[in-house]
């Protein structure tokens, strides 16, 4: 009997703990609160509800948290200035753990339960692909800050703020070729990830156009993402003087370590997925010295908008320097605010009615937005959902990102 009791207590403990683990969303405790007045789906409050879904925990957590933090910052600024046409915005968020399956769908469903009318998400491509057909069925206006896979914008209700993978891949090849960074290039990519594979395929095409020689093509999967000694050895044996890393920062930090172990010091070049590598707890930033990446945003840029954003973000979030995901999300909220303002969207409209208006208006000739991302040029959209913008290259120097 005694044993049974102990066992029952243990089981209860495990259950409580695993629930605690599920609901923990660091950095954003208030955003995920369910407002009882909004649970019924149609918004009885006088606020327009914008939902964000992204990885708030797990290996890509920095992206999700940056997006939620920056979106909250923008929402607070807009509300403090009297809202949009007098209506306040409200941000709700959900954790999809960058999962490309049921977690992404349930995060989206939980946002709908919280009364979401406009969807600013998702943060990563895999999760986004899992929900695009749901948002299309619901006719929910979707503006993703950072999901860059080309297929994300297949439906007519979804638009991107970041540049697409084909753009990133081709631009990377172009940048490497035009700046004579290397003649022999190796690639290490994640074959189990849509983002990584997408950039890799387009990089390969771009490299062929620019006569860059790819001497080694190495891959890994999410189940074998710890040991990179064989891949690094292959790059070294092939004599590559630049390794292209269209992957996320967690694996990249292991690749940099494996290269250092093998006494191999090529140039490393990555895309927006490498953003965040400097903020990994306890990471030896010396390993990342000289790593170049293509990104739409550099926190040390000198223009007023960037300076103001960086100062406000640092003040609100423990002096943390915002990455490009934060900038994309901050722009995203302001883009939505502009659209809401211009088209007199009100809080009592249904998500579907809002979507019908916004998906037409965002790609009209007259609409453009000049924000933090886009290297100084205004962003415009065409009816494919893709954005027009120019990436910038940054290099990691003395443990910080510096514009090139």
């Amino acid at each position, binding site marked *: 009997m005694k044993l049974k009791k102990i066992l029952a207590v243990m089981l209860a403990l*495990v259950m409580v703990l*695993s629930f*605690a*683990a599920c609901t923990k969303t*660091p950095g954003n405790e208030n955003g995920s609160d369910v407002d009882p007045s909004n649970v019924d789906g149609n918004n009885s409050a006088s606020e327009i509800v914008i939902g964000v879904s992204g990885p708030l925990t797990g290996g890509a957590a920095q992206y999700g948290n940056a997006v939620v933090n920056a979106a909250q910052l923008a929402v607070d600024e807009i509300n403090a200035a009297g809202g949009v046409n007098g209506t306040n915005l409200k941000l709700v968020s959900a954790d999809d753990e960058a999962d490309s399956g049921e977690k992404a769908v349930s995060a989206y469903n939980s946002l709908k339960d919280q009364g979401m009318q406009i969807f600013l998400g998702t943060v990563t491509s895999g999760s986004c692909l899992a929900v695009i057909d749901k948002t299309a069925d619901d006719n929910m206006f979707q503006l993703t800050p950072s999901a860059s896979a080309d297929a994300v914008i297949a439906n007519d209700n979804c638009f991107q703020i970041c540049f697409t993978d084909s753009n990133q891949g081709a631009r990377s090849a172009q940048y490497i070729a035009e700046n004579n960074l290397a003649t022999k290039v190796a690639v290490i990519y994640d074959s189990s990830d849509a983002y990584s594979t997408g950039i890799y395929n387009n990089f390969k095409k771009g490299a062929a156009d620019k006569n860059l020689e790819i001497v080694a093509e190495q891959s890994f999967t999410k189940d074998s993402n710890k*040991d990179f000694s064989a891949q690094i050895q292959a790059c070294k044996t092939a004599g590559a003087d630049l390794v292209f890393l269209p992957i996320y920062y967690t694996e990249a930090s292991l690749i940099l370590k494996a290269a250092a172990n093998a006494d191999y010091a090529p140039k490393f070049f990555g895309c927006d997925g490498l953003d965040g590598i400097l903020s990994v707890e306890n990471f030896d930033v010396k390993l990342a010295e000289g790593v170049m990446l293509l990104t739409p945003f550099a926190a040390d840029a000198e223009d007023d908008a960037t300076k103001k954003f960086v100062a406000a973000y640092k003040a609100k979030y423990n002096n943390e320097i915002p990455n490009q995901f934060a900038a994309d999300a901050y722009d995203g909220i302001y883009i939505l605010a502009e659209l809401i303002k211009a088209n007199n969207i009100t809080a009592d409209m249904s998500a579907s009615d809002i979507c019908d208006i916004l998906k037409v208006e965002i790609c009209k000739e007259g609409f453009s937005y000049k924000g933090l991302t886009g290297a100084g040029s205004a962003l415009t959209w065409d009816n494919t959902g893709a954005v027009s913008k120019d990436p910038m290259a940054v290099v990691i120097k003395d443990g910080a990102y510096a514009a090139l």
Partner: protein
Amino acid sequence: MGFLSNLINGISLGSIYAVIALGYTMVYGIAKMLNFAHGDVIMIGGYFVYLSSSKLLHLPPVLSVLIAMVACTILGITIEKIAYKPLRKATSLAVLITAIGVSYFLQNIALVIFGANPVTFTSVVSIPAIKLFDGQIVISGETSVAIVVSILVVIGLSLFIKKTKTGKAMLAVSEDKGAAQLMGINVNKTISITFAIGSALAAIAGALYCSAYPILQNTTGAMPGIKAFTAAVFGGIGSIPGAMIGGILIGVIEILGRAYISTQLADAIVFAVLILILMFKPTGILGKKMVEKV
């Protein structure tokens, strides 16, 4: 040269698998149960080293590893007492499922305590790399230490089992629990000691694994745990030299498979080889032939 480098990398990975596999093999050999939580004890060991060496206490590496070994030993004995001991007479399937439960419990409790963001582990090894053939082959400090430590552990364990009273008691318990008890051996204590040793080894393995692949998160132990279990079966579960041979072979096959066949199929190749070996030698390379009692 490339081949030699890959081979060294494989032996390095394999040595770490071997240390982990020793934990599986000892517990299986003596308690006749598969302790699937072993991989997660590695992760906890990694966190203890991380906390005592870089996060909280800033102790020297060797001391941090010792602290982690003590902590994991206590953890191992506690797990054994709470989760496995009450099931001593239950079916092996019940014990197996409990072990999987303990594994998830440890992963989730680590998630609650340490959070979900991966941290970079500072290597406990400060030995410089060895460069051969004008830098064409580089053996990192982590590699040398992993190989040396795994050899020392295997020799140490073999001597411990052959020469000491406790070791002989372990052998006796693994042969026949009932008879051992009649001879005056405290079976429960012996099994506890086995868990203690297995968990201390897990702490060492955690330090080695995280030094070589310096990302630490709550699922860090899962994959190496499965690979090392495979290694233990490969070498013949229950056999100490078998775990060493199995571990090294698995590591070498994995790295060579990744280097020369396919980076994506490396894991599949490892398990395909395992199936082949088990088809021809069902008890593993050094496994004893067991007569099925009817």
